[in-house]
């Protein structure tokens, strides 16, 4: 008999050397995909009752309460983040609370890989793979959005000024990791304004 067991998509990758920022995988995170209508006051209240915070309705924003964070994905879709253990609890509570409402809640904890970027120059590194202008004042803490990153679908969460989480589908984890390791190399560091130092 084989037992189901979770293995992180980036388990065993080598510690990257010589990068201008730090990158690491976040594997201890549960994710729930939630869909429903913001026009349905009962649905909105039921969700708030479970997760403790109202769903963010403003496009490209997130909301948090304690160890739970909600990312806006669309006008009718959110991603609820928590620890893996808590996600199981939240999911059953959500399903109970949402009985009778037109909605959907699914555990998608194993669907995406999360890579955390930290340090001065994260924005420049990410901008090598996306058309987004991350210097725009919209991209501050509390902002999240889907984007096309290195030609694949990704989700960007601005955790803090110099801390970013990139979510990609699990099968793209290695691709994204390798792309980051290449574009974040210290000699490839970009300066957006002023004269660029010639790498030694």
């Amino acid at each position, binding site marked *: 008999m084989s037992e189901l067991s979770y293995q992180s998509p980036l388990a065993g990758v080598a510690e990257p050397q010589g990068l201008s920022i730090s990158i690491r995988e976040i594997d201890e995170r549960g994710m729930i995909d939630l869909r429903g209508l913001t026009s349905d006051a009962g649905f909105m209240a039921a969700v708030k009752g479970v997760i403790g915070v109202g769903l963010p309705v403003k*496009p*490209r924003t997130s909301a948090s309460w304690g160890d739970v964070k909600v990312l806006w*994905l*669309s*006008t009718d*879709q959110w991603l609820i983040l928590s620890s893996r253990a808590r996600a199981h609890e939240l999911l059953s509570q959500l399903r109970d609370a949402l009985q009778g409402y037109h909605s959907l809640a699914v555990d998608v904890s194993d669907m995406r890989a999360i890579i955390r970027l930290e340090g001065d120059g994260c924005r420049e590194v990410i901008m090598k793979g996306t*058309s*987004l202008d991350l210097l725009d004042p919209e991209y501050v803490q509390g902002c999240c*959005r*889907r*984007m*096309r990153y290195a030609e694949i*679908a990704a989700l960007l969460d601005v955790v803090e000024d110099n801390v970013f989480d990139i979510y990609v589908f699990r099968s793209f984890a290695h691709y994204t990791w390798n792309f980051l390791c290449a574009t974040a190399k210290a000699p490839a560091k970009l300066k957006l304004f002023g004269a660029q130092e010639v790498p030694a």
Partner: protein
Amino acid sequence: MLAVKCPVCGAEGDETDFHAGGQAHIRRPATHDPAHVTDEEQRNYLFIRINPKGLHFERWRCDRGCGKWFHAARDTVTMEFKAFYGVTELPPADVIAQAKGQWAEYFANRLTSESKA
């Protein structure tokens, strides 16, 4: 490069963040009158498209944003977008007024049939 703006979530971006979905305002004849669909109507619905030089109406999807479909009016010569509007909506009246040829005919028919209804 085309700069696109989604009317649903307000995301602005490069055309690579969006997905072009072909001609807009195509109506499936069988939805309206399943019992009387001629071969010609069905052929037109499936294969015949307007390909104007100038103002055109298209479907686009906010692929790397909210994921919703919407409509856009675009000039195929200058590549300039004239309007972005909802997927169940008609273009703004001033843009309809600029439509020529088959599109002008289409909107005239559509507006008369809707005012009768």
